[in-house]
């Protein structure tokens, strides 16, 4: 019960913080009305104004522990690995280029998604490497050869 409530509290708190930063940013932009005409900060302030009560309702429910069970991550390692790989791919895609970055990304994801299969680690590594090279080649064929879209070659 306590864990469930704390996840909801964290979510509500994060949304409140985002709304506050959003509203502050809007206020520092300009007043909501200039010469009686709605300005660029009018709409954001209106949204923040609607958002606050809604967020407080979720906060109140979380404190009363009324929320249904949600949000439990059943496989933390897989999620952390997938997020890490995806973030890394976005970072190295330009400097390293399409081929190496995509092979590494597909290799990593294939290892993550094939954990439930009954294979030895060596076999999984070989399988994932073959998949990574194959998918990268298919992607190259699709984008560069079929659709004539230039993919980054890397800065190194």
């Amino acid at each position: 019960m306590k864990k469930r409530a704390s996840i909801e509290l964290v979510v509500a708190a994060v949304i409140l913080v985002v709304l506050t930063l959003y509203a502050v940013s809007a206020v520092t932009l300009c007043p909501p009305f200039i010469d009686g005409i709605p300005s660029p900060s009018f709409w954001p302030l209106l949204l923040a104004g609607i958002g606050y009560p809604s967020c407080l309702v979720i906060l109140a429910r979380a404190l009363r522990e009324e929320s249904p069970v949600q949000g439990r991550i059943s496989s933390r390692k897989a999620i952390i690995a997938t997020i890490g790989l995806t973030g890394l791919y976005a970072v190295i895609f330009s400097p390293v280029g399409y081929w190496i970055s995509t092979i590494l990304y597909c290799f990593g994801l294939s290892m993550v998604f094939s954990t439930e299969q009954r294979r030895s680690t060596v076999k999984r590594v070989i399988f994932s490497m073959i998949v990574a090279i194959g998918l990268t080649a298919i992607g190259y064929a699709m984008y560069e050869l079929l659709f004539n879209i230039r993919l980054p070659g890397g800065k190194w």
Partner: protein
Amino acid sequence: MIDINAIGQSFITVLQPSILVWLVVGFFIGTFFGAVPGLTATLAIALLLPFTYGMDTIPALVMCMGIFMAGIYAGSITATTINIPGAPSAMMTAIEGYPLMKKGEGAKALGHAAFSSTIGGMVGSVVTLFLVGMAAPLVTLIKTPGKFSLIFFALVVAATIQRGSFVKGIIAVLLGLMVATIGMDVANPVSRFDLGLTQMVSGVQLIPFIIGVFAISEVLIQAETHWKATEMAKRLRRRDLIPRLSDLKKIGLITYVKSMFIGYFIGVLPGAGGSMAAFVSYSEAVRSSKHPETYGKGEITGIAAAETANNTMCGGALLPMLIFGIPGDATSAIIMGVLFIHGLVPGPHLLTVQFNVVGPMLAALGLCAALLILPSLLILGPYYLKIVSINRGILYPFIAMVAMVGAYVASFSFFQMGVAVVIGILTYFFRKQGFSVIALLMGYILGNQAELYLRTTLTLGDGPILLFTRIPSIIFLVLSVIFVYFLVVRPYLKQRKQQGGLCKS
């Protein structure tokens, strides 16, 4: 005004081999994505969005229609064979189809699902094809205050109609609206919420947003999900796939007609989608049945009701999208992205001067249902189970790679690729907490228009009073109140009363 010649020409255009091939390609892509649990037609079109840049407009739209129709239909395949709906809209089909599969009558269930999808898909698309022709003059009657109220109504529906908390629905819509405010202001040359980055002046672009919300978050969801076809279904015999006349009589014409009405009406509602259409139609079939006790044990009328409704929904969902730029469901929202990519803007101009583009698109939807669903089942039906046997270690890395590269290719921006990743990760946590992704998407897509129309209304002579004095505006505001009352307030009051009764006893 309905131009029969133009409608006829639309069908002829689609039947040209160079266009028809794209319909077939789209159909098979949609069947694959619709059948595999975790993949959807929405995801398929989101992944293909960047590719449509290099395609001509009509083939791109025709392919999308093939994906849309097939994606909704194909969910019934795995729903029946392995009790895992390939698409959310096939949940009710699983309730009746899987028991039939266990009894050895899986082919019968698949045949009825395909037949019902064919009928629903054809009727939905033809109705929309005729209605768009009549809608153009009506659209011009709605002025700026009415346009804002219409979008307000759409956002209210999107927030209320999803299962789960209404308050979470509101927050999902608001977050989408907030993302839409990033970048240049709608009316003034001012950049907002750009965090001091020049790359953010153009805001969060459509394709990276869609890829982040649907593709990247889905890969994350699938990373912690494990499903398997634990029972290999028996081989299906082709002759058993053809629905028998006696079964069709048992289901009855009224079931099909009611389901079409329900499916089309729900399709028109913003954010409602196929799962809602199937659920409501199935519930109505149970309610009106003389033998409701047979439901849940392999009742083909349940399959017919659900599948007719969810495929009729396809035509309905496109109607408000084409007329007002307000999508009826997530897939039509992304199809709207395809229109934007090709410089097409929903509204009277698209429905009249550019009917030569819209017409073939709608004709393709109907032809896909008429020409491809049943024949593909008869030819490929016995092999459909192989679709779910694809190794996850190959499938999801492929989807993730296509999504990530697609986010880059959309604007050749590494920055937007990063934006897609951030949005994907945030959407993953969002979904885990029960927030509606469709409400988020609707907020993002309609945000700029909503802001522009409201600010313009407030600038006009009578200001905010116009919202309550113009008839179209009043109609949409009243509809919003009705929706909130029936879907939120009344169930809440009923629940409180029941809890009060329990406490007393």
